[in-house]
């Protein structure tokens, strides 16, 4: 019984995602790129919404993984494949797993709390919406100049720039990661029982 439910949910989700894409493709007369963009964008936004609204945290985590995947796809479209790869490896492979582990370690015995949202959820929603609207307006009002096409970045160019000009930040970030690892281990260590 459950399996049917999941299949139907997946179908609905797929429909939700692809419909706008098809619309854009067919009606707007856009390219495949556009359709793909719309599909991935929709998927990402929907799963992000699910992350912040679902009651069960583990499901939130899984939705987050889906969002990251969609985002990786958008990175590819925009012309940054290395970033997309890093996104998948680091965000999905490391951070999301870490988060899921943490969720498991902090699960309370009781059922999920009765309230999902804080008392200030309504003003928060309003604020978030207004924020987005403001940024969108600002973006729309700005003239970005001659930026018609997106350029795909070659990986070797990226590598050269990274290790020529940005080698210092690169090293600093590695030190930062080392510090984070040590710190994380230290903070999360169980204290020795007295005696």
């Amino acid at each position, binding site marked *: 019984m459950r399996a049917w439910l999941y299949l139907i949910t997946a179908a609905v989700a797929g429909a939700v995602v692809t419909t706008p894409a098809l619309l*854009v493709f067919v009606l707007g*007369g*856009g390219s495949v*790129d*556009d359709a793909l963009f719309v599909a991935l964008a929709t998927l*990402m936004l929907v799963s*992000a919404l699910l*992350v*912040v609204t679902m009651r069960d*945290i583990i499901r*939130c*985590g899984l939705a*987050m993984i889906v969002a990251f995947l969609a985002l990786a796809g*958008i*990175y590819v479209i*925009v*012309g*940054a494949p290395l*970033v997309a790869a*890093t*996104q998948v490896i680091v*965000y999905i492979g*490391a*951070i999301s797993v*870490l*988060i899921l582990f*943490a969720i498991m*370690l*902090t699960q*309370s015995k009781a059922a999920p709390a009765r309230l*999902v*949202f*804080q008392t200030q959820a309504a003003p928060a*929603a309003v604020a*978030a919406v207004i*924020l987005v609207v403001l*940024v*969108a307006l600002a*973006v*729309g009002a700005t003239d*970005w*100049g001659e*930026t*018609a*096409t*997106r*350029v795909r*970045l070659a990986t070797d*160019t*990226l590598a050269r*720039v*990274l290790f020529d000009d940005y080698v210092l930040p690169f090293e600093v*970030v590695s030190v930062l*990661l080392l*510090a*984070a*690892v040590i*710190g*994380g281990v230290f*903070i999360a260590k169980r204290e020795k029982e007295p005696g």
Partner: protein
Amino acid sequence: MGLANSLDSYLILASALFGIGTFGFLARRNAISMLMSIELMLNGVNLAIVAFGSFIPDLMADGSIIALMVIAVAAAEATVGLAIIIAIYRNRQTPLVDEYDAMRR
């Protein structure tokens, strides 16, 4: 339609993702949910940076490099943040932030 080709659409998408993350950060009770929302916000910003890097010729490599740095830092931050949350959970036995009120009057 040129959606995938216009900087504006990526930026608006990025701001939407950021907004969703903001809402989640302000509105959720579970500490780990707040952290996930923070990750969403970081990703939104990342997208904006990459979009800039891709569309503006001067920033071509810089955009991606900055995005990589952001991802690395986000990883570090998630590590430490989760470690803290686990430590607090051990102390308070609850992951809900409105019950962390030892310093309140």
